[in-house]
């Protein structure tokens, strides 16, 4: 599978990564190589095999609906790049 520069830019946009014009050829080459490598999977004997999302066949455990007061607000917000009145600030979002 050979990716095009347009493919690379489309993926980068989905992944919210900025790619410099100069770096596009490298991405095209490297990602195409990896995709070529994983194409080995095409020959795999996987008819009638179900996909496996988890290594163990176990079921989801649940927890009781009990609330615990939040005490970490100060410690978590100390990590924030920009906070005002307890709100995380980002450039204006236009809806």
């Amino acid at each position, binding site marked *: 599978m050979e990716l095009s520069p347009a493919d690379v830019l489309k993926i980068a946009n989905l992944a919210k990564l900025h790619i410099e014009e100069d770096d596009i050829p490298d991405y095209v080459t490297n990602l195409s190589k990896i995709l070529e490598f994983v194409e080995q999977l095409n020959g*795999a004997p996987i008819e009638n095999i179900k996909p496996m999302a988890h290594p163990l066949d176990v079921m989801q455990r649940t927890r009781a609906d009990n609330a615990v007061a939040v005490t970490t607000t100060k410690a978590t917000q100390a*990590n924030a790049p920009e906070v005002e009145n307890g709100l995380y600030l980002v450039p204006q979002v236009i809806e």
Partner: protein
Amino acid sequence: MHDKTITELSQLLENKETSSQEITQSFLERMRIIDPHLNAFITINEDYALQAALDADKRRKDGNAQKLTGIPIAHKDIFCTRGVKTSCGSHMLDNFISPYDATVTKRCKDAGMVLLGKTNMDEFAMGSSNENSFYGYVHNPWNPELVPGGSSGGSAAAVAASLTPIATGTDTGGSIRQPAAFCGITGLKPTYGRVSRFGMVAFASSLDQGGPLSKTAADAALLMNVIAGFDPQDSTSVDTSVPDYTATLNDSLQGLRIGIPKEFFSDGLDPEIATAIQVAAKELEKLGASLHDISLPNTELSVPAYYIIAPAECSSNLARYDGVRYGYRCEEPKNLDDLYKRSRSEAFGDEVKRRIMIGTYALSAGYYDAYYLKAQKVRRLISQEYQNALQQVDVILGPTTPTTSFALGSKTDDPISMYLNDIYTIAVNLAGLPAISVPAGFAQKLPIGMQLIANHFQEAKLLNIAHQYQQVTDWHKRQPEMNHQG
């Protein structure tokens, strides 16, 4: 002091022949001299460590000590440590002070262990050489020109160079076992679900598992007794009883059936490693085990399957690093899209970006079935293959890596050849199995690792075999010669 195992150190503490402060001081001094040459640590907090040592000594005096109270430990910088920087080897989290403790770090803390520092690693655990760290390369204590392996390279180098008596690591495709092999130490990757992932920064959630890197199997057993077990905060943690891993270390290997897969001895394998592993297998045979040829025909498919599944999960797991609530934010973002794109591009390294891109692509509309779903099917195929093999034998034995450590910079331009370094370790993660790497000889003065794989929740068996092997060999006792010892 520094060359002692934690089994020995804990005995000395119990006999009151030394104190945690004395032990801690000794390791901190050694770190000061040697770590500048290895770069095994991202964070060393001496005050924090000395206070913990003081507390541990008091606890021992008060008669409340546990087995590992006062024993120093280093955590891979992927485990959240409350109030201490947790960088995950990334520029993205260079300024991140965790507001909470991971379950693993909390259990160690509760046991009275002394945190010496946080070890270097490939960024977000993506890499097999520790060359993908924002904090620079880690050097292999056996030869500073070589890589220590990755992604838990800092932990492996620190244990091998005796900067810490024991360390934690995480293993997503071999990230405990491969650096353990490259650095000549013991590394255990537990069963998926055995050690809590809560607070362990996620790379690929269905593959990640934390475990010990240690000087001996007995040491690994001691740490497993602290960190293993059910955690209600991790939905994938399994609620089954945890054995005392030290209790079965001395069990006889009589009657043990060992399978040797022919695919693990194929073309890519260094012949010296092949020989060493065969010698090691014979050693186990002498201890009463029987050797059986087995086949795992789809071994080769494990690497491509892994390189779809792991990037797919990582592309989603790393979406939270967006410059909003914590971590790196670019200067003067023009708008929201600019904030996202520049923050992420400026703070993530090349390999991380590459994997995010591949994973995004594999999950995107029109490609999901061709890549992700197919990889998930191959995953089951491989898992079934191992289950079948483990019906015939108790454990599977082979090399941990196809080569010994390689030169820094030698593979950085070729991701595929780097990925193939994990050919023997990756299937274990896909199948969620436990596996251990044990020192089993040297090739050109570089350590060789032997890998043993068992069925789910059979860590005690692996530790038992490794321990028995270490009773009759001394590979694990060899120490790297370091010219800069003070």
